């Protein structure tokens, strides 16, 4: 079983890193979004500092979702989804493995870039550390929520918008607690741990729900 999952992880990472695979697109989108915000807001450093964490979270959230609508659709189009369904491994684990590959290729680079981009927004080091840790805990959940949307849209053509509409409402709690934890680290009005633990709880919830729901959606899509 682990051999089949390792094969899926390896293949999806290769596909993401090859030409047209989309691993770089999320990072470029994130960079572009964070770069243009200061131009829109103007040279108001205190304001940038205050909203910087929120900008990073919104950027990372949207960048994480890029490409997820194709996560199963491309396998459906070339026939390999049938072979994944026939593989001697539970479908939920296959879906979870595909999500892991997507997160390593798209989500992890965003987390790594966050401290650098945070400097561009004038965020102080403690807040920078906080936003990086919250993104590390939160972006896997975004990928797993998107996984459900991707599975629902597996057999639909041009489903990018549909997936965004399905997925964004579910991602709102992550955004709220992610930004709240970062604010807590800066202002010390509430302890950082409280919203951060809620963020981790939501992340763990989607770790369970995401693959199971995606597997159910895929089975229905095939019928």
């Amino acid at each position, binding site marked *: 079983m682990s051999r089949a999952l390792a094969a899926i992880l390896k*293949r999806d990472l*290769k596909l993401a890193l*090859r030409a047209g695979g989309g691993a770089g697109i999320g990072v470029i989108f994130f960079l572009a979004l964070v770069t243009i915000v200061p131009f829109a807001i103007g040279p108001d450093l205190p304001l940038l500092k205050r909203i910087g964490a929120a900008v990073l979270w919104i950027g990372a959230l949207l960048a994480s979702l890029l490409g997820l609508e194709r996560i199963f659709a491309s396998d459906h189009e070339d*026939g*390999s989804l*049938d072979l994944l369904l*026939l593989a*001697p491994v539970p479908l939920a684990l296959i879906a979870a493995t595909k999500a892991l590959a997507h997160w390593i290729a798209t989500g992890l680079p965003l987390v790594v870039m966050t401290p650098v981009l945070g400097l561009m927004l004038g965020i102080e080091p403690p807040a920078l550390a906080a936003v990086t840790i919250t993104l590390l805990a939160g972006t896997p959940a975004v990928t797993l929520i998107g996984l459900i949307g991707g599975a629902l849209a597996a057999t639909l053509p041009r489903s990018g918008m549909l997936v965004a509409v399905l997925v964004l409402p579910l991602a709102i709690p992550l955004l709220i607690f992610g930004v709240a934890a970062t604010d807590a680290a800066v202002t010390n009005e509430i302890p950082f741990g409280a919203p951060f633990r809620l963020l981790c709880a939501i992340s763990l919830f989607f770790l369970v729900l995401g693959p199971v729901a995606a597997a159910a959606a895929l089975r229905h899509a*095939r*019928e």
Partner: protein
Amino acid sequence: MRLLAEGLGSMRGGRSLFRDLSFALGPGEALVVSGANGSGKTTLLRTIAGLLPPDSGRISLAGWENPPGEAVHFVGHLDAQKGVLTVGENLAFYRGLSGGGGATVEAALQRMAIGGLAELPAAVLSAGQRRRAALARLLVSERPIWLLDEPASSLDTNGQALLARLMREHRGRDGIVIAATHLNLDLPGARAISLGDGH
């Protein structure tokens, strides 16, 4: 092991494709499913594979303990090759996915007479070469039941002869072959089902 289908029936889009279809296949036996376009050949194969639930009837594997997915190789009309990966990488993926246990990637590609293409991206292959690469999946892991959907499409004469030889060897090892086709496959002694005329 024996593959038993009892009273199979399937509807697609509100239309009955076939009903009350029964057959039993033992070791070394083969079944050729023929019929006009749209008569349900692919649907029958997908139903046997377990990719589609039958609307009536049942399929069972007598003498098979493992999950049904581990009994079948399914080669559909799509080749399931990722264009940006090389032919070798594509096949290595399917070898890992199905648990291995069969021929190595190199040996399987050699056998399909496309050993020289292992390092090429699958996107540059011709339709016939892609078909051979898809059929190479049959060799990289041992499965008793082969479900082949138009396996000979795009294959040249040599390719068709090679396919016939592979199917003969598989039946010689007590394997079962079920092929949906409108071409003539060299499957001596195979049973035939024709869909869309009375079923």
